């Protein structure tokens, strides 16, 4: 069992409250996943800056002077915001890959959580309310975001086993369920040059999407492919630069409920996660169909 929440804002006036709304939804899903929690938030700023979110188990040591050292390495301005064990590095958008290579040299122990124009991913072990407060999620603003509370089944309770998993620039994945063919898929993907870092089943699901898109599939086509190629139970929610998508396996035993008003589209593993949203009493509430890919875009 795990909990998933997602919120896609149509009404720009709600953007300053995105983090607060998602935090409340996330905490409601604590009893579906008390092991760890994570959130992917899309700031939506087309300001020419690229973002690299990194994580370290030793933030004081690893983040000290990191912005200055990265600036010297790439010869371009670098911004850094530290939040607990995570730091968001901002570089010119055309310097993201250069900066990522430089980071691997400067701090080999850093884990890259996400890369993109607007995506930031924060995740850690612990109760969702504690994870939310250490990253001050409630203060974040943005256009859309997804969150996950984890009850571990297929791999250990670690930061890297927590969701969301990044699947590519400005793309991420969260999962409720368990995949049963992840070992064979992991070997297949390694032959194709796509390597995973953990024994986690969801990371293989994310790597599968990365592989399909690397070979020319759209995100929608890659999600359709999961219905054929992944064995097991899944409700996936994926975040993209300008929206989010939902797909459930054909058996669809993992719960999902959605709500839509003029102001937002929201996803929850249970209706409980949605009850604090404005206008929920008059929202259109429904259950997404099995084996059907849904998308909402700005």
């Amino acid at each position: 069992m795990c909990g998933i929440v997602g919120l896609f804002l149509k009404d720009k006036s709600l953007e300053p409250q995105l983090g607060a709304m998602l935090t409340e939804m996330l905490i409601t899903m604590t009893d579906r996943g008390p092991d760890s929690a994570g959130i992917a938030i899309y700031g939506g700023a087309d300001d020419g800056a690229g973002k690299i979110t990194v994580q370290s188990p030793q933030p004081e040591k690893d983040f000290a002077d990191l912005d200055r050292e990265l600036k010297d390495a790439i010869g371009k301005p670098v911004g850094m915001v530290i939040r607990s064990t995570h730091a968001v590095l901002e570089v010119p958008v055309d310097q993201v890959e250069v900066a990522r290579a430089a980071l691997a040299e400067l701090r080999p122990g850093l884990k890259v959580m996400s890369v993109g124009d607007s995506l930031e991913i924060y995740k850690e072990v612990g109760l969702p309310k504690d994870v939310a407060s250490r990253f001050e999620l409630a203060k974040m603003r943005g256009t859309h975001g997804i969150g996950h509370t984890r009850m571990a089944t297929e791999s250990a309770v670690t930061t890297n086993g927590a969701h969301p998993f990044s699947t590519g620039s400005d793309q991420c994945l969260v999962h409720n369920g368990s995949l049963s063919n992840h070992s064979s898929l992991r070997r297949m993907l390694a032959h194709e040059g796509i390597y995973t870092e953990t024994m986690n089943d969801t990371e293989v699901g994310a790597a599968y999407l990365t592989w399909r898109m690397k070979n020319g599939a759209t995100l929608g086509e890659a999600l359709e492919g999961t219905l054929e190629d992944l064995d097991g139970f899944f409700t996936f929610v994926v975040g993209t630069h300008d929206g989010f998508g939902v797909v459930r396996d054909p058996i669809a035993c993992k719960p999902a409920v959605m709500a839509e008003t003029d102001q937002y589209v929201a996803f929850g593993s249970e209706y409980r996660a949605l009850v604090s949203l404005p206008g929920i009493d008059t929202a259109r509430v429904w259950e997404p169909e099995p084996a059907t890919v849904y998308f909402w875009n700005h």
Partner: protein
Amino acid sequence: MQRFDLEAQGLRALNAALHALNGQTNETAWEVVNPKGSHSIAVGLDAPIELTVHGSTGYYCAGMNKQATIRVKGSAGPGLAENMMSGAVIVDGNASQYAGATGRGGLLVIKGDASSRCGVSMKGINIVVHGNIGHMSAFMAQSGNLVVLGDAGDALGDSLYEARLFVRGAVKSLGADCVEKEMRPEHLELLADLLKQGEAEHLAKPEEFKRYGSARNLYNFNIDNASAY
């Protein structure tokens, strides 16, 4: 009218108060406010009361109901009215998966859509759905009646025993051993009564439905299939 604020008073207090009515009571009208998707609202009732939930419910609402009439003025989460024995459960909105599962008696009415596995292993309950039902509904259904005014999803009535399935709209596919059957006068009469009980007599006519039931080919082992095992 007994009014219960679930947010203020809590779930255990609600169910304990309702269980204390066991058998006979003069407190026959109840309403629950602020359900906010909570789980296990009004489970295990055994008293002839009328209870209305103002809002949407989470998992297992109205499970194991006996005698009570429970109305939900919203939508219901997974496991609605599981194993109902008698009484009635009426939901104004949609119901999530396995609504009415294993029910032995009573009436379940869903005025919106029901999701997958509606009426799975039903054993005597009557279910009336005004909208559509999802895949694998009435799987291994043993007795009782499932009436669907809309469409049915994949594998309707798979491995069905003696439950009767009435569907007005399209059936995406029939499950193993489920077949369309002739609608005889006694079925039209039964259906007219079920539509009335299900608050749907103004929405559909018995003649508009098709009847599905068991071909009874799975009842006995076919020796010609021995090599398949």
